[in-house]
């Protein structure tokens, strides 16, 4: 019985991710006075990729090339499942926040490995950029999580963090919580590869970079993995900073997508040097201030 529920949850998170991604595309189109794609566009795109031919390039390391989208997909599925079971069933295990951090790193890590294994110079450039970005944003996100954990009194249970905020004091309303939210928001933007931080996939410079050699079903697996991340990453951030009732969470998810889209549309693409400087020399000191405030109870 519970397995059917899990599958329903996965179906729900895939469809929510698709709607969220569509909302981002549609809002971008509306910002540019265009009409934009219909709501089912991302699902149709993915279905189309599964009927196309899959090509494995000649010099590629076959096993890694095929395995990396599958590993990425499975780890993002597990993240979505952990988040939803945490919220609905209060079913959790010790230090599930740390497990989620690791599972969220895996898609990026295998994106890098897949790009390296595809034997393409542009993919190589993209993979190097993705590596640098990974070092930049994961560091800042962990600082932001430290603030949340300090505010919860050292608890590593996600459900405890949610419960404590449901009782009344939402972290978003305090100073240190707001700082942590800002850090997590830029992490979200960079992790999803949306415009100020889309250097690894820069279409105009390196022709979709890390994805360049992927085609057909393998690209489809990457897209589903990204679809799931589109839902589970904002969900994770909402759970950390402003949880509420289920309907509230869905509304906040769409608001977060709106915020991402606004930042996307008013910024140009950053160079990789600027990305590193932004995360290390601007957001990290901000995070240290946040930790200081959190220890002193602000």
């Amino acid at each position, binding site marked *: 019985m519970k397995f059917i529920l899990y599958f329903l949850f996965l179906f729900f998170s895939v469809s929510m991710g698709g709607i969220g991604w569509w909302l981002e595309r549609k809002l971008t189109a509306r910002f540019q006075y*265009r009409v934009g794609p219909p709501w089912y*566009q991302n699902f149709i795109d993915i279905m*189309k990729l599964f009927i196309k031919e899959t090509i494995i390039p000649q010099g590629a390391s076959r096993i890694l090339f095929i395995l990396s989208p599958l590993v990425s997909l499975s780890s993002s599925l597990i993240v979505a499942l952990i988040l939803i079971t945490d919220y609905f069933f209060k079913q959790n295990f010790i230090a599930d926040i740390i497990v989620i951090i690791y599972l969220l790193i895996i898609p990026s890590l295998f994106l890098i490995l897949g790009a390296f294994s595809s034997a393409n110079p542009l993919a190589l450039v993209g993979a190097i950029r993705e590596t640098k970005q990974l070092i930049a944003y994961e560091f800042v996100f962990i600082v932001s999580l430290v603030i949340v954990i300090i505010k919860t009194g050292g608890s590593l249970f996600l459900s405890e963090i949610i419960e404590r905020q449901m009782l009344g004091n939402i972290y978003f309303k305090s100073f240190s919580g707001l700082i942590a939210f800002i850090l997590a928001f830029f992490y979200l933007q960079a992790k999803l590869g949306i415009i100020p931080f889309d250097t690894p996939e820069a279409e105009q410079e390196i022709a979709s970079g890390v994805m*360049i050699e992927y085609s057909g079903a393998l690209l489809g697996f990457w897209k589903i993995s990204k679809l799931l991340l589109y839902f589970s990453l904002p969900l994770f951030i909402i759970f950390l900073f402003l949880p509420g009732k289920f309907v509230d969470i869905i509304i906040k998810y769409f608001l977060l997508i709106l915020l991402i889209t606004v930042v996307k549309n008013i910024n140009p693409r950053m160079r990789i040097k600027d990305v590193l400087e932004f995360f290390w020399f601007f957001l990290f000191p901000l995070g240290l201030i946040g930790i200081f405030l959190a220890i002193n109870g602000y």
Partner: protein
Amino acid sequence: MGLKEKILVKSLWVFHISAGSCNNCDIEILDCLTPRFDIERFGMQLIGSIRHADVLLVTGAMNKKSAPILKDLYEQAPKPCFVVAVGTCPCSQHMFKDSYNTISSLDAIIPVDVYIPGCPPKPEAIIAGIAKLINKLTNDKR
């Protein structure tokens, strides 16, 4: 009309190849993405990598240097993949017919599905050409 075609025509990803054109047709193709014409509402996207392509938009008169590259690109694209000749140059060599370094029109090199003549064709004409391609896909089975 099968399910495959139904899905395929709703998300045509377009790859743009300039095989030695004068840039006029390329500018007109980019015009299709502007707010006035906006082909993204039909699910079409201009993409950067040949491995993601469903439609190859070829502009320009083929010369001796670009023809072998074009052939390679066609072989690298995952099938089913359709070719659209944009402008009079790839359709029928235009004024470069007797030139010393052009080889032939596009259909002698790779199979072409739709021809869009014009020098350059208007964005409306390009969208009409893609509509022709969609009609061709949905009516007869490949």
